[in-house]
């Protein structure tokens, strides 16, 4: 006799309990604190903030703990929390020219005012496993020196003064908000950049890499890459002026790209732009390359059919929360649809005279 499956509710509760136990792991090992994650897994925290579109290191660290280190799951937790938050207003645009830079490098000039600052980078580390870390995490203090405070000019400004790079005039129009309005094509650059800054790092990296290998190549140089803190200001209506409400760490990448010029424009360099929450060089450089590739139309270039040039393709597939949800939903029951396909295939086979069930092999 057949009894239909029941008990979904209990199965779910049990699965949740087991998950909680697995997340905790061996209870003889000390529980990992949110502060430890925030301080010692900072780049993971930064990625969760960037793709979660919410700047809060403590919440990001909590999400990483809760998600057992699955960063896309952590990003999902942050996104779902973010949508429930009321909006008090919008900040003034941040000025990255006022950044207190921890790192600032240019690949296009050997030296520049303010100098090349390597900062805390993996770049020249030899990727040798450091077994000392397994035993003892203590490190000596790094040397430091005082830096005179002041604005740090952008490298592309030096090119701009000579008219060698396209102008990027300041604009006062309020950009559309990807999280409050449905995405509509064609998307403006402001909207594309919003989508890219929260886009999946791996997807963005792959697309950017494809442009380097010839799928929409645009000859990018890293004009400048800078990482550091910028103040965030917001105008308070009751006060009538803007006040600083905090500081955030940003990574900004400006690429200098080749451009042949057209009938109306003399040859000049063009720009790609990447700006990401936290310290995330890979993401910001990738973003700048993809941004530049998506600009083919406004720069009068040919569409060579490269994936990175296709705004619909890029923007509709860059979000890892959308992608992972839809991808993983195919593990939900689909037996009703499958049944209808079964019936159809059986019918078609019957009509094709192929309905004989093959004999089992002896």
């Amino acid at each position, binding site marked *: *006799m*057949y009894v239909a499956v029941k008990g979904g509710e209990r199965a779910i509760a049990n699965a949740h309990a087991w998950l909680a136990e697995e997340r905790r792991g061996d209870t003889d090992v000390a529980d990992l604190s949110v502060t430890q994650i925030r301080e010692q897994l900072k780049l993971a925290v930064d990625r969760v903030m960037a793709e979660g579109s919410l700047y809060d290191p403590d919440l990001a660290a909590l999400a990483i703990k809760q998600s057992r280190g699955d960063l896309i799951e952590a990003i999902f937790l942050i996104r779902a929390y973010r949508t429930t938050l009321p909006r008090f207003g919008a900040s003034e645009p941040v000025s990255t020219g006022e950044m207190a830079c921890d790192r600032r490098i240019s690949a296009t000039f050997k030296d520049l005012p303010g100098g090349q600052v390597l900062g805390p980078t993996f770049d020249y580390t030899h990727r040798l496993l450091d077994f000392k870390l397994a035993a003892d995490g203590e490190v000596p203090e790094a040397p430091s020196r005082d830096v005179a405070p002041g604005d740090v000019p952008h490298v592309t400004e030096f090119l701009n003064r000579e008219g060698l790079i396209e102008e990027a005039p300041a604009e006062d129009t309020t950009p559309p908000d990807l999280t409050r309005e*449905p995405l509509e094509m064609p998307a403006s650059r402001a909207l594309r950049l919003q989508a890219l800054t929260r886009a999946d790092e791996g997807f963005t990296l792959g697309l950017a890499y494809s442009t380097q290998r010839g799928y929409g190549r645009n000859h990018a140089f890293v004009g400048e890459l800078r990482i550091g803190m910028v103040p965030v200001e917001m105008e308070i209506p009751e006060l009538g002026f803007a006040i600083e409400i905090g500081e955030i760490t940003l990574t900004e990448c400006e690429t200098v790209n080749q451009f042949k010029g057209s009938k109306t424009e003399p040859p000049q360099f063009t720009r790609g732009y990447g700006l990401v929450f936290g310290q995330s060089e890979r993401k910001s450089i990738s973003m700048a390359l993809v941004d530049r590739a998506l600009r083919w139309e406004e720069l009068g270039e040919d569409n060579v059919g490269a994936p990175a040039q296709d705004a619909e393709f890029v923007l509709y597939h860059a979000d890892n929360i*959308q992608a992972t*949800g839809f991808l993983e*939903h195919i593990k939900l*029951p689909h037996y*009703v649809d499958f049944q209808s396909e*079964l019936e159809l295939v059986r019918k078609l086979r019957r009509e094709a005279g192929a309905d004989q069930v093959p004999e089992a092999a002896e």
Partner: protein
Amino acid sequence: MTDQDYNFAYLDEQTKRMIRRAILKGLAIPGYQVPFASREMPMPYGWGTGGVQVSAAVLTPEDTFKVIDQGADDTTNAVSIRSFFQRTAGVTTTTKTSDASVIQTRHRIPEEALTEDQILVYQVPIPEPLRFLEPRESETRKMHSLEEYGLMHVKLYEDISRHGHIATSYAYPVKVEGRYVMDPSPIPKFDNPKLGDMAAIQLFGAGREQRIYALPPYTQVVSLDFEDHPFEASKADHPCGLCGAEESYLDEVIVDDAGGRMFVCSDTDYCDARQAAGYKGKDAA
């Protein structure tokens, strides 16, 4: 008992207003997909976020809510969504179709005819019926605006020339009031005839794709077909093994290691009610 940390039915009021405006435009333009700024929900995209947002915008505390997935109330995702609204909206829930005022569904329309006092909310994965023929939103939007549905007919006709039949068995496209071609969500085509002239309001929510659309009651809905190949609603040619129903949509269940099969109603409430009324199928205890 509702969860006090969140607003009634989870969504904030501004979001609900935005969704409600989209629902009204959807009802005013039957079958047309209204773009809406879908929010990230605490369940994954693809798992009913569109349906959940529509339900959240529609529910009142007095509603009785039912959730089905594949026709069943006790599939895990149905259980999960039902408990979400129990928690956030404090609504009464039910598994009984006739007791529900709002029914959220994935992939089925209940067997029992719905009434004017009910609302059916569909979860939709890909709302664009033309998407698999033309992946670009900018193009499909143009095709809808020009009523240019030739591509769809070509696809269906190619099926006929290759297989002798239209090879679409679920998410079978329909034309609404002679104007918009609409995806009825991945319901089996067996359910298509119930879409038209239904007494209940039908609302469709696609969260990831940011679209809402609707069918007012008593709306003309026609499954696309050809004169020489008329649309045919089909199901497994068996009675239900448990309740003996001849007219209900059936699931095929593998019952032993030798591949033995039986067929049972996919609509669990319908099947339970029939069994309670004394109907018996050949496999019933």
